[in-house]
């Protein structure tokens, strides 16, 4: 039994290679469960959007496309800095790894900040379901349904961002201590996968929620 003396090798694995493969397969399966998780929501959304296309478009008009658009750009940029962070780890470049991790975290926080501003606007306009929701017009119930999905989906997405920022902060501390190198960068790589996944969810959410009303003139 070839047991390496490396400190990062857990006792029940035979080699770093095996450990790396196991972690990355685990991450992919975790992402599959995430897809199914969001998939249930997307299904519900699509069903109601098909039943009430006009109302959903109307609800969509009340979202701030500018802020949503800025956030999309912010998130795509963060995907780039994350990819660069992984690359820095692979090249054993500790300094640039730290810099790119910090940039990614900052971009993530920016996204969350803008999201919070948006939520604040909705609160002010009484568009938060369950918290004094009020909407003039005959279809108020269905507009509320739209906002249920809006808050549930973007809220869940934001929660994933918060978790991601937390993970990246831990990685940042470990990176500062010099844990990662070309020999061992699995955690950075896996966090990267997760981050990209969360970004991709947003890439679906943005058109579904913000843009569906563009071509339909709501009343």
């Amino acid at each position, binding site marked *: *039994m070839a047991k390496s003396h490396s400190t990062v090798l857990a006792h029940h694995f035979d080699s770093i290679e095996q450990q790396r493969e196991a972690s990355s397969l685990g991450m992919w399966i975790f992402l599959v469960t995430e897809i199914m998780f969001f998939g249930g929501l997307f299904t519900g959304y699509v069903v109601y959007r098909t039943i009430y296309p006009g109302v959903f478009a109307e609800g969509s008009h009340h979202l701030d496309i500018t802020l949503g658009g800025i956030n999309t750009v912010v998130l795509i940029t963060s995907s780039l800095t994350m990819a660069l962070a992984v690359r820095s780890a692979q090249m054993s470049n500790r300094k640039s790894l730290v810099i790119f991790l910090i940039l990614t975290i900052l971009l993530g926080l920016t996204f969350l900040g803008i999201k919070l501003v948006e939520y604040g606007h909705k609160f002010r306009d009484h568009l938060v379901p369950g918290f004094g929701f009020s909407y003039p017009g005959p279809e108020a*119930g269905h507009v509320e349904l739209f906002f249920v999905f809006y808050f549930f989906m973007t809220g869940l997405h934001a929660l994933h961002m918060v978790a991601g920022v937390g993970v990246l902060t831990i990685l940042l501390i470990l990176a500062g201590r010099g844990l990662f190198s070309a020999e061992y960068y699995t955690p950075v790589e896996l966090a990267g996968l997760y981050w990209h996944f969360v970004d991709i969810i947003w890439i679906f959410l943005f058109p579904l929620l913000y843009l569906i009303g563009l071509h339909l003139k709501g009343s």
Partner: protein
Amino acid sequence: MIVDRVEPRENYLNADYGIKSWLLTTDHKRIALLYLVSVTLFFFVGGVFAVLIRLELLTPQGDLVQAETYNKLFTMHGVTMIFFFLIPAIPAVLGNFLVPLMIGARDLAFPRLNLASWYFFILGGLIAIWAILAGGVDTGWTFYTPYSSSYSTTYVAVTILGIFLSGFSSIFTGLNFIVTIHRMRAPGLTWFRLPLFIWSLYATSVIIVLGTPVVAITLLLVAVERILRVGIFDPALGGDPLLFQHLFWFYSHPAVYIMVLPAMGVISELVATFSRKNIFGYRFVAFASVAIAVLGFLVWAHHMFVAGLSVYGAMIFSFLSYFVAVPSAIKVFNWTATLYKGSISYQTPMLYAFGFIGLFTIGGVTGLFLASLGIDVHVTDTYFVVAHFHYIMVGGTIMAYLGGLHYWWPKISGRMYPEGWAKLGALVIFIGFNLTFFPQFVLGYLGMPRRYYAYPDEFQVLNVMSSAGASILGVGYLLPMIYLIWSMRYGPRASSNPWPATGLEWRTPSPPPTENFKETPVVTWEPYEFRPREEMEVIGKLNINDESG
């Protein structure tokens, strides 16, 4: 059976002492025991509700409890049994213990995640119990909307939180199994050399990973609708109740296979060992597990024939439902073919396996009745359905669980159980089971609806039979609990391979050391290759190890 005396040596049970060494363990074998204790407790809780239900149904009038209480009883019975006993029982107890041992690994791929899964399970279970103590739930284990989301005044959201958390525990276990089976097999252990139990757990894990998140999000939406009073599934508020049923059954039909596939895996092991033959059509049985996992996702709407599905939709789902019976039938056929001309020994685990095959066949055939549209419309929501799913789940899954527990007990505890008592227990359970649930087929066929606390007088005889059977069944379940605990202390010590079986788990001492194998085994033989002389040599060698270790 070879029983030998060995000196005390270090194993996973005595490697470390104290409650902390158990609660913080990352050893898959110890976590399996944590699960064993906890699912047994939940089984007991669910059983108490079953007793109360059967007591109420002893007489035609509702004289023991009121309708609302009865609704809570069958709901909490169903919730506890399904989510906190049947789903975790075989994977989390036997699977956790055996997956690494059977594939020659030192542990599961993510030991800490495994421990976390137990904590999620316990947390979810405690929350569910809290809901029960606070006043219970009355929606039925299916939580149909809009009743559950808008009208019920009971502890729906709390119960849902409990189930939600325990769902994460299954997801963690499933993820761990898939990665472990993919990446940590011993050298030479190719996919087609894997024990069939491993194949079945692999397929089960795939279902868990794909299905559980969907039911988790669905139940979460019900809770949101309840708490915020917004319309998602309640038609009065603009929602769609059928959407709930689609999402719910997308998980919950496959969930019946989460319960029964691992059971089938156990049966394959038992049948091979106690007839001393390779499983007839090994590859067919392995692929049948995968086929069940795939097809299981295509038939959910057969639970919705009377819920307002379009006629064409119903016909398609009826047709597809017949398909999913095919892989199950393949398995039954192959077990029977394996038994044919095998040298069968009628030891306790084998008795359970026979029980499984018989009861599962009855349950499965009545499932075909239910899958055919016309009959389903007649018997839906009657005791016919209750009998059907108890034959599958109690007759199938629990028989296999107990069979497996007896079969691997020497490995788990290092001790043999008293064979005479064990045989008696198996017999009592079999008799009690049939007396309890067979009359329910008749009741359902005659038109007794389920979920009512009172019934017309003419149904009383059959109901009394059923309640009498339930008390016998209860005694049957207590027996193993008593003598297994007894055997932990007083049973004769078990050798490493008491049956003699072929799997890797039998090539390490009983109970195994913490690291499972002193040396990573190298597999050069096919699965279930029974070659008596070589086997004895292997066992002989291991015994020498036992004493020197």
